[in-house]
């Protein structure tokens, strides 16, 4: 066959095991991951190159070059190079530190150890040295290092279990099975080293659930699919060891391919800033042109008469050329309107804000010792503008811990704790737990607070015993007992795990199982039940049952399932109990617990035999097998006796409902995107208070075709639109979205979403979804998560935030404007991809409402002030142009121009940008609607920009023309003249520094010691530098650089100069004060009101405001609590997942529905698993 050697256009991948030479010919990516940008040598050139790609930096470089041309150089070169070098240096240092940390984290991943089979021996190698075609050995609980083809494992039939939480967020274990030919290799290193199969497969792609390829070995071809692949990012579970062949490595693994390109995220303010800088640039050119034209005219009318004094006769003759030169000269002296230090100051501010996030103790999770971390330091102010939050469910909203919380047995509830007066006690950390020490096999982590249940057990109440017996028997869990008494349950759904663990602690310990038997330790005594049949779970049945024979020979059917389903199949004599239990179930559901009803039935031997025969017949049927089996199951699951109900808490992370409520009040829409099932997702929706009973409608979209989805969506839109018209008859269309009174929720599953995301439907989807208060997308793939985020980004132009904890959230985290990772968990993928990370969902509230709001507020104030300052500073030259023959003469001393932005006025505004708090944190959290201005982009937009630049222009006008008026005729008090340029410069410069200092004082809401120090310090430094530069000493050293000798002394000792400064300051400032006062007085914003309130209460002394407790009001009964899949029943009864191959020890012919097909059963198992994966 012809081989394609170019890796760029890889069409097919050829991998030969244990043949590095062969594989190297294709130059596949190795397993090293590189996210860092620079190394020691490339840093300087690449970094400088990147920096000069920034418009502002390139612009200043051009300016610098212009300044070197003597004809147009109106300013010395140092006025530009000093700030430019400073700016470049600060940015470079920051980039270098960032990259250093990337190097470190790369290093950490790349140096993880794995065992690689090299030259017939297993050797420890770093991950980065693993090559395609290597065979590596994995051990239990290890991360898979690369995309592997499973060759063999410690489990029978080459099975192996993996957890794919990092990949798709699903926490159930998944099964992978090796080809029989390779699983025979076992762990025989010699055989494995001789293995020389060649895999031909698809090129690297990002499809997590698809793999096609063939294995050619010993002249045979075997087809390969995804069920034989272990993908990077998975964790090996319940499997002692396995061997795999590396197919894709490093950046070509499916995980990495799925991560998407790391896009440089920019905030909307960033983009606005760039536009504004361009505008300013345009404005600068306009000014340049005006002044150049002015110069041309002046040179013709005035300058030509003046050449006796102004040499360069040739210039005055060619006035147009003079105008051209003047244009460039003015570009140079007016360059400060394009604020060079803007970008670097903004970066410094963001860095500071990021540190405040890192330092926040209220976002520190002590249990895992994880502080919050701002991993990206360029997005902070966008945290104050978030409108949409996309949240993962598992691990983010929930802890993914199921807790057996309450139960109802025979009409009595257990689980609540009452004090001596009979009042219900809230269960906290300190509530005493029930002592299970009577049971040596207990699980220490299990906690239960109601001791009456244990007493009931000890009293040997038969129904209570039966209840726990049922829990211990009716499930599909695999036990693992490493040492005596050290039981570990391998549950494919955490719910089942919780139930069986509860039974274990209450003395009904599920100890071991074979395909035909289940062994319990009932109150310390071993009892073995014969397992006769498992009536497996599926989505229609919503229940599972087992039929067992106990040691006394009685046949029993134990069933657990959704209450609604089970209640229909009860014996009529149970009616009363059913009502009581039903009430209890309502109560449980109201607390957001997931419920299950339990029932049992004694079976008659004859009936069972009869049924069994039918079942055997049905299971060998060739068509409609599933239906026939279902009908038979239905037949026997009738007339059961109710035992009670269980309530499992899908433990939410701390404070989730409160946080969601608070964020909703801040007008942030929260969407849950989860790979989990519809029911589980809805359940969480209810327990988080996102779905409520009082919602008008909960739309569930689960169509399978494009047409169905369209119909469902438009139906919803139609009906909701109709309701809207009823409630909002008089409101126009444009505002109806804001005035929604009716509340809707939308739940959409992955299939439907795939259709809804197509171009025709996406607009409808967005419309409908945005009408709904709550949107939950379930069963979505990582890519779909990203697509949903992208959709909103595109259609709503709103700031989006994605929060998640697993690798399946990475794409969404990267797509959203802001990605937040939940840290402190095992996997790091989400955190590594995120911009911010912390340990608990509830910190989001603080991140957005406190840090985000502050950052936005600070940044906006900062920008307003910054533009104002630069305009006020620079435009003075423009006015002066009219009086100096448009000759590009500067008003100020060159040193003042150099230092104004970086020394005299940078620190106060930085301090404001770092420390300002319009409203303190308590009030920010108490009044979430203070967040609104950020979402509406009110604090800094184009209008604001115009206002503040206009203010700057006016200030510059006043700054120039008041001294102008005063200096027309002024002389010193000793008669000497004072209206010389240098005095003029010092007067205007001093006025300017004072005016902008007063202005920053007005803009500062929160005067810390640092602000005081910086503001007063800047003024002091200004005067100190002024006098130093105008001193005799520095003049005698550099007479040409410091010609202002003595000006400060001679002008600032004049009363008239101070009178001019005072007048200028007052005229510049007071109008602004008046405007602000009127605004706050007549049209106070929310912030103004809260500030007043804050000030009022501060005087009264602090009051501690308790955080709202959100009460769950749902009375909805969760349909069922099975979070698991179909198919495990078969796996157990076929014995495939048992370590000890079963010998036929049973005396009774054991039935398994698939037994007849066992010869090819691996396919059918896989089919069952695949059922839920689409």
């Amino acid at each position, binding site marked *: 066959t012809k081989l394609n050697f170019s890796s760029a256009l890889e069409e097919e991948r050829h991998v030969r095991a244990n043949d590095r030479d062969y594989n190297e010919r294709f130059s596949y990516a190795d397993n090293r991951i590189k996210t860092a940008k620079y190394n020691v040598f490339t840093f300087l050139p690449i970094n400088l190159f990147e920096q000069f790609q920034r418009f502002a930096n390139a612009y200043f470089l051009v300016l610098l070059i212009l300044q070197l041309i*003597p004809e147009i150089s109106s300013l010395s070169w140092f006025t530009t190079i000093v700030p430019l070098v400073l700016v470049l240096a600060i940015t470079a240092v920051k980039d270098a530190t960032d990259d250093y940390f990337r190097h470190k984290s790369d290093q950490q991943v790349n140096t993880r150890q794995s065992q690689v089979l090299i030259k017939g021996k297993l050797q420890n190698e770093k991950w980065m040295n693993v090559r395609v075609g290597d065979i590596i050995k994995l051990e239990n609980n290890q991360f898979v290092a690369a995309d592997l083809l499973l060759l063999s494992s410690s489990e029978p039939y080459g099975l192996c279990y993996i957890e794919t939480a990092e990949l798709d967020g699903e926490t159930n274990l998944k099964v992978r099975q090796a080809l029989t030919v390779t699983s025979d290799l076992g762990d025989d290193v010699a055989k494995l080293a001789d293995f020389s199969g060649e895999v031909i497969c698809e090129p690297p792609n990002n499809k997590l659930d698809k793999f096609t390829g063939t294995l050619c070995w010993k002249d045979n071809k075997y087809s390969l699919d995804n069920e034989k692949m272990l993908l990077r990012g998975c964790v090996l579970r319940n499997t002692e060891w396995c061997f795999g062949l590396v197919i894709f490595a490093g950046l070509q693994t499916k995980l990495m391919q799925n991560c998407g390109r790391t896009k440089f995220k920019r905030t909307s303010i960033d983009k606005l800033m760039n536009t504004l800088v361009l505008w300013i640039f345009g404005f600068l050119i306009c000014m340049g042109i005006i002044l150049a034209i002015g110069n041309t005219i002046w040179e013709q009318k*005035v300058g030509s*008469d*003046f050449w*006796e*004094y102004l*040499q360069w006769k040739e210039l005055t003759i060619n006035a147009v050329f003079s105008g051209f030169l003047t244009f460039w000269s003015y570009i140079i002296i007016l360059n400060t309107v394009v604020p060079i230090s803007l970008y670097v100051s903004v970066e410094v501010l963001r860095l500071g804000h990021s540190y*405040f996030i890192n*330092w926040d*103790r209220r976002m520190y999770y*002590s*249990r895992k010792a*994880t502080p919050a971390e701002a991993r990206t330091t360029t997005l902070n102010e966008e945290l104050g503008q978030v409108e949409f939050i996309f949240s993962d469910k598992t691990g983010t909203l929930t802890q993914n811990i199921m807790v057996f919380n309450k139960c109802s047995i025979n009409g009595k509830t257990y689980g609540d704790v009452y004090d001596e007066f009979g009042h219900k006690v809230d269960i906290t950390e300190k509530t005493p737990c029930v002592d299970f020490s009577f049971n040596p096999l207990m699980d220490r982590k299990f906690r239960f607070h109601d001791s009456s249940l244990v007493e009931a057990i000890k009293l040997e109440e038969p129904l209570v015993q039966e209840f726990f017996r049922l829990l211990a028997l009716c499930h599909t869990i695999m036990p693992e007992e490493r040492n005596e008494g050290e039981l570990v349950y391998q549950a494919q759904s955490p719910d089942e795990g919780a139930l069986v663990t509860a039974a274990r602690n209450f003395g009904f310990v599920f100890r071991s199982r074979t395909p035909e038997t289940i062994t319990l330790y009932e109150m310390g005594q071993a009892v073995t039940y014969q397992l006769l049949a498992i009536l497996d779970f599926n989505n229609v049945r919503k229940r599972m049952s087992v039929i067992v024979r106990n040691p006394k020979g009685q046949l029993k059917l134990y069933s657990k399932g959704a209450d609604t389903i089970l209640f229909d199949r009860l014996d009529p004599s149970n009616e009363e109990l059913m009502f009581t239990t039903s009430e209890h179930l309502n109560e449980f559901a109201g607390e957001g617990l997931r419920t299950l009803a339990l029932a049992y039935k004694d079976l008659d031997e004859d009936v069972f035999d009869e049924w069994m025969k039918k079942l055997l017949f049905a299971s060998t049927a060739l068509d409609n097998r599933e239906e026939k089996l279902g009908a038979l199951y239905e037949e026997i699951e009738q007339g059961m006796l109710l035992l009670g109900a269980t309530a499992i808490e899908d433990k939410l992370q701390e404070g989730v409902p409160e946080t969601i409520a608070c964020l909703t009040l801040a007008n942030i829409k929260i969407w849950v995107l989860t790979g989990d099932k519809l029911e589980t997702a809805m359940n969480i929706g209810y327990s988080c208070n996102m779905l409520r009973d009082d919602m008008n409608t909960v739309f569930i979209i689960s169509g399978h075709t494009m047409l169905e989805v369209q119909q469902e969506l438009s139906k919803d839109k139609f009906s909701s639109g109709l309701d809207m018209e009823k409630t909002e008859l008089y409101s126009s269309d444009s505002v109806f979205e804001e005035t929604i009174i009716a509340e809707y929720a939308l739940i959409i599953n992955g299939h439907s979403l795939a259709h809804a995301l197509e171009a025709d439907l996406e607009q409808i989807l967005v419309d409908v979804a945005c009408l709904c208060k709550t949107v939950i997308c379930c069963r979505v793939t990582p890519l779909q998560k990203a697509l949903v985020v992208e959709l909103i980004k595109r259609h709503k132009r709103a700031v989006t935030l994605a929060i998640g904890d697993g690798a399946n959230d990475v794409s969404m985290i990267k797509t959203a404007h802001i990605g937040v990772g939940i840290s402190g968990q095992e996997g790091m993928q989400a955190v590594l991809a995120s911009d911010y990370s912390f340990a608990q969902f509830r910190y989001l509230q603080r991140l957005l409402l406190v840090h985000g709001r502050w950052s936005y507020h600070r940044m906006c104030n900062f920008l307003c002030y910054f533009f104002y300052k630069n305009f006020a500073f620079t435009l003075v030259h423009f006015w002066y142009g009219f*009086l*100096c*023959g448009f*000759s*590009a003469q500067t008003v100020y001393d060159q040193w003042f121009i150099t230092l104004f932005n970086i020394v005299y006025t940078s620190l106060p505004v930085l301090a404001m940008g770092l*420390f300002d*708090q319009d409203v303190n*944190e308590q009030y920010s959290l108490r*009044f*979430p609607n203070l967040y609104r201005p950020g979402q509406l982009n009110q604090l800094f937009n184009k209008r604001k920009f115009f206002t503040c630049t206009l203010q700057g222009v006016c200030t510059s006008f006043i700054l120039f023309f008041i001294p102008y*008026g005063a200096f027309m*005729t002024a*002389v010193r*008090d*000793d*008669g000497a003249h*004072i*209206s*010389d*340029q240098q005095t*003029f410069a010092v007067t205007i410069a001093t006025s300017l520094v004072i005016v902008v200092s007063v202005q920053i004082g*007005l803009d500062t*809401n929160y*005067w*810390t*010691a640092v602000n005081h120090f910086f503001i007063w310090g800047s003024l002091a430094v200004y005067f100190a530098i002024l006098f130093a530069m105008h001193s*005799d000493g520095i*003049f*005698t050293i550099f*007479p*040409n650089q410091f010609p202002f000798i*003595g000006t400060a002394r*001679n002008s600032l000792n*004049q009363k*008239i100069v101070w*009178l001019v400064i005072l*007048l200028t300051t*007052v005229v510049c400032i*007071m109008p602004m004060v*008046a405007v602000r*006062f009127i605004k*706050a007085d*007549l049209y106070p914003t929310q912030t103004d*009101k*809260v500030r*007043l309130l804050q*000030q009022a209460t501060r005087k009264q002394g602090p009051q501690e405001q308790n955080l709202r407790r959100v009460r769950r009001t749902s009375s909805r009964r969760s349909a069922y609590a099975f979070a698991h899949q179909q198919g495990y029943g078969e796996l157990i009864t076929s014995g495939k997942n048992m370590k000890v191959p079963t010998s036929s020890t049973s005396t009774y012919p054991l039935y398994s529905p698939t037994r007849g097909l066992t010869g090819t059963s691996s396919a059918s198992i896989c089919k069952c698993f695949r059922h839920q994966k689409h």
Partner: protein
Amino acid sequence: MMASSYNAKDEDGHHPGSVGSGGPGAVKSKKPDNTAFKQQRLPAWQPILTAGTVLPAFFMIGLIFIPIGIGLLVTSNNIKEFEVRAVAIATSYCVIRALCSYTAPRTKDFSNVFMYYGLSNFYQNHRRYVKSRDDSQLNGDKSSLLNPSKECEPYRTSDKKSIAPCGAIANSLFNDTLELFYIHPNGSRIAIHLVKTGIAWWTDKHVKFRNPGENNNNLSIVFQDTSKPVNWRKPVYELDPSDPDNNGFINEDFIVWMRTAALPTFRKLYRIIQKKKDNMTPTLPPGNYSLEVIYNYPVRSFDGRKRMILSTISWMGGKNPFLGIAYITVGSVCFFLGVVLLIIHHKYGNRNNNADIPN
């Protein structure tokens, strides 16, 4: 590590791990330090613009500015009387290079009288003009004397010798001579003594400008390798041969000229008429005066104007009505604004601001 003792309240408590850093066993806790700075709880003054602070500010400014303005205006007007005749001169100019003569009646005054020359439409602030000087040459630097800065071009060298002082500013030195005579009622002309020192800034005279060759009093030797500016009639060392402390670069007329004006219309101090020692007779007794101008300086080409101003000064310097008027105006506007704001605040202001906060 802290799981066992976690409780929400200890978030604010002090954590010992954050302090000790040196001990071998001290593991640095990841818990952020509980400092006011890091937790953004620095004590701070939080001013708000309320009626209680803004309105008094406006009234205060009004009440302070108006008296200042009145004071300035009165002072300025007091000076005005001496300017009347000066203005008469200022509006005239000589057409030909000749000796002009004017008469000006003076009123009574006992203090020093300052004599200024003024130029209009003279762009001493033009960039090409402003930079055309060499400060280190003017500071007496030997090498700059012989090799002046390139900024001085084209007034840098003449006849292959460096020009001292170089540059356009120096080249265009104002060189009219003004003399004032008192015309005695009997017809005789008495020359008024005009003091030509003390008219420049002390720092300029003593620091910024220095003659080259520190101890060599013979300036003609010091400047021997240099050439005079092309427009000058005589070299720099003959500016005031009578007074070695006012000759060369430290000639005060020269220094005054070199301090370029900010605006195209300017006045520069020319001479001082010192008050009489007895303090009994006015400096310039009432009567007729004649001003004689030796007209050297061409201004006609650029439509410029020359003026001569005699003025006394006050604590605020010369006559300056602008400031007084500006202060009065600003003060009044502030006061008026204060009243308007007060009315607005009382009529429409939200006095119940905090009552209607949602949530």
